[in-house]
């Protein structure tokens, strides 16, 4: 791991200005991606994972807007604000223009694999045609060269008989095959970073396994870095090097993958792990997280997880913790945003436990309008992250 990260995100904030109020979908997250590693971005639906990853490419659409933070990629500023002369924030001069982002960064440097392979290919053109056009556009090859390259890429991602499949339409491909095509498309321009937005969520488990193996192989071969957005801790354990756990627009825990699983520091991560179905536990043994995730439009005071947290105490209602280094894993920091750790020193141990916090908050929230996504505590509903 080199010292200078490939991608550095600092205090990124993306908000949606809706009629009901400001939805703080991403609220000050910071993380790094180093060359050749797979970084997980984990959380329930609505935690802001997808919005965060789209913000990196400045692909957030109205009414959403990136309102603060800095995104640096290979020393270039993808997004950055500074104080203007009359006190307002303005875009920094070195920030890449929309045109530069579009032509140089999107597709060429940072590619995206989307969640639903059924929807991510244009149904009216052949698979090969789309792949070829993409290569032609981004790499400036001639049509014939691009065609050869496209067939090579299809072969590379394990599509049998690529010359023939090249001429077929997306609906003639199975879900797994389409996801392979999308991976081929993402890899086609040999980007340094691929944002994979829940790429295996829509696939069944056996196919998911194959795709993960494929990504693992290709990642080793090309040395591409990944940001892997998912809600599935099983997938995280399988392929990620480092993990960021998101809750309600914030990163609550940040650690190397083994650390996260064996030395969990945040109650939310703990709760996620305990709510995960495993072969050695029956459904009755599962411990779902109580309550539902509140709306990002009006987050709870203090620690945002406190209404659902089994460890919550009075102090959690008041103090809003920023992630701090709570442990050290072979030289890598293990950050968590929970005041129960000593580094915070806000009097957690002396603070009285919140009586009936979970029940009280949980029942109060049920009569508020909730998105259908938030009703699923384990968060295995695909799609619709953030406040779109």
């Amino acid at each position: 791991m080199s010292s200078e990260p490939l991608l550095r995100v600092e205090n990124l904030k993306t908000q949606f200005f809706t009629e009901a109020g400001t939805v703080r979908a991403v609220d000050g997250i910071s993380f790094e991606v180093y060359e050749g590693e797979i970084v997980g971005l984990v959380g329930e639906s609505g935690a802001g994972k997808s919005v965060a990853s789209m913000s990196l490419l400045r692909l957030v659409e109205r009414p959403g807007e990136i309102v603060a933070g800095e995104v640096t990629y290979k020393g270039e500023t993808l997004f950055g604000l500074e104080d203007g002369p009359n006190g307002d924030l303005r875009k920094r001069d070195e920030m890449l223009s929309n045109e530069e982002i579009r032509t140089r960064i999107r597709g060429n440097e940072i590619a995206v694999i989307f969640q639903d392979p059924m929807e991510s290919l244009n149904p009216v053109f052949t698979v090969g045609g789309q792949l070829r056009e993409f290569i032609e556009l981004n790499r400036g090859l001639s049509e014939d060269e691009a065609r050869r390259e496209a067939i090579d890429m299809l072969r590379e991602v394990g599509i049998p008989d690529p010359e023939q499949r090249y001429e077929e339409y997306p609906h003639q491909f199975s879900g797994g095959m389409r996801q392979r095509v999308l991976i081929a498309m993402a890899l086609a321009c040999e980007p340094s970073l691929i944002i994979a937005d829940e790429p295996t969520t829509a696939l069944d488990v056996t196919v998911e396994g194959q795709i993960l193996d494929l990504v693992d192989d290709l990642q080793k071969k090309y040395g591409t870095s990944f940001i892997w957005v998912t809600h599935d801790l099983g997938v995280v354990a399988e392929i990620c090097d480092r993990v960021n756990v998101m809750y309600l627009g914030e990163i609550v825990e940040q650690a190397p993958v083994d650390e996260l699983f064996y030395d969990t520091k945040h109650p939310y991560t703990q709760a996620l792990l305990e709510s995960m179905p495993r072969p050695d536990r029956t459904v009755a043994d599962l411990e779902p997280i109580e309550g539902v995730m509140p709306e990002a439009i009006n987050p709870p005071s203090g620690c945002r997880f406190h209404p659902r947290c089994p460890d919550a105490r009075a102090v959690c209602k008041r103090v809003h913790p920023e992630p701090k280094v709570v442990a050290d894993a072979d030289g890598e920091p293990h950050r968590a945003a929970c005041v129960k750790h000593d580094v915070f020193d806000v009097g957690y141990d002396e603070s009285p436990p919140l009586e009936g916090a979970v029940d009280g908050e949980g029942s109060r929230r049920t009569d508020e309008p909730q998105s259908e996504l938030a009703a699923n505590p384990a968060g295995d509903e695909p799609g619709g992250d953030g406040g779109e």
Partner: protein
Amino acid sequence: MAVGESQLESGTDTVADEDDVEARVGWRYTVARIKQDTTARWGLYIVAAVLSIAVYAVVDSNLSLLTFGLLSDFTFARLLPIFDHPTYIPPPGEGTQHMPPYFPLAEQSWNPLPAGGTLEHPLGTDHTGRDYFTRIVYGTQVSVFVGLVSTFIGLAGGTVIGAVAGYYGGRVDDVLMRLVETVYAIPPLILIIVFTVFIGGANIWYAVIGVGVAFIPVFARIIRSRVLSVREMDYIEAARAAGVRDRNIIMRHVVPNSFAPVLVYATLQIGVTILIVAGLSFLGYGAQPPTPDWGQMLNISHGYMHSNVWLSIWPGLAIMITIMGFNLFGDGLQDALDPRIDD
């Protein structure tokens, strides 16, 4: 329909699964479906026949269909003779004796009273003695031209406006759609008449453009409503994430995926525009004499309703059959393009 059936069979063989809704798309499948559907097939036949007659009338500007035969005098020089009125060129070896009855633009009176059907004039002649059949055939190209061009104007304008408005949304959408709705609020016939008068008088060109413009709003609204759902698809997001420019996203991704309902509507619209332009010609705002346009023929013939009712019936029948053809075809196309309808 051996060809159609074999196409359909090979289509369903390669296309994965009978139950798979998405498998029922594609050009070949659509053609096969139309060939299977009796109504659509008849629509297709009528449209094909009308188009062939129109093409023939364009190619053979003398239109001496009966006397000179198919090979008489193909003149490509005046491809669209509705705009300038060609002078009569007698076929080789013939004198000018055929001129008034068969030359569709002749203006001198040959036979002052309309005559009934004879061997030489199967549909009779009109009040100036011109062969009525020739004029009906000649009128086909005017109608088809009018239908195609004005529908194309509406389709092209509506597609651009609707796609841009739907894709960008927000203020762009508001401005474009309010503009379009302003046009939409005015009854089309009034709009066209005002347009032609304002531009500079009755002329088939102005009628065609006016009808086209008057129907831009309808197309814009249809395509916009489709674009609103298509632009939320992941492949649009994927294209944006891949750095494709907006223009290409609209052209390559948004429009092709929003086009099926518009295509169906356009087919039906061809019939409607033919009818409207015929109405305009009847009112005197469309094709001008001596151009043999069906609507304009109706206009003249209504003065002879009592002496020869057939003069009104033939152009009316021609209009009816043509519009019916396009409507049947459009309906069939709609069913064929909708993968959820299974018969």
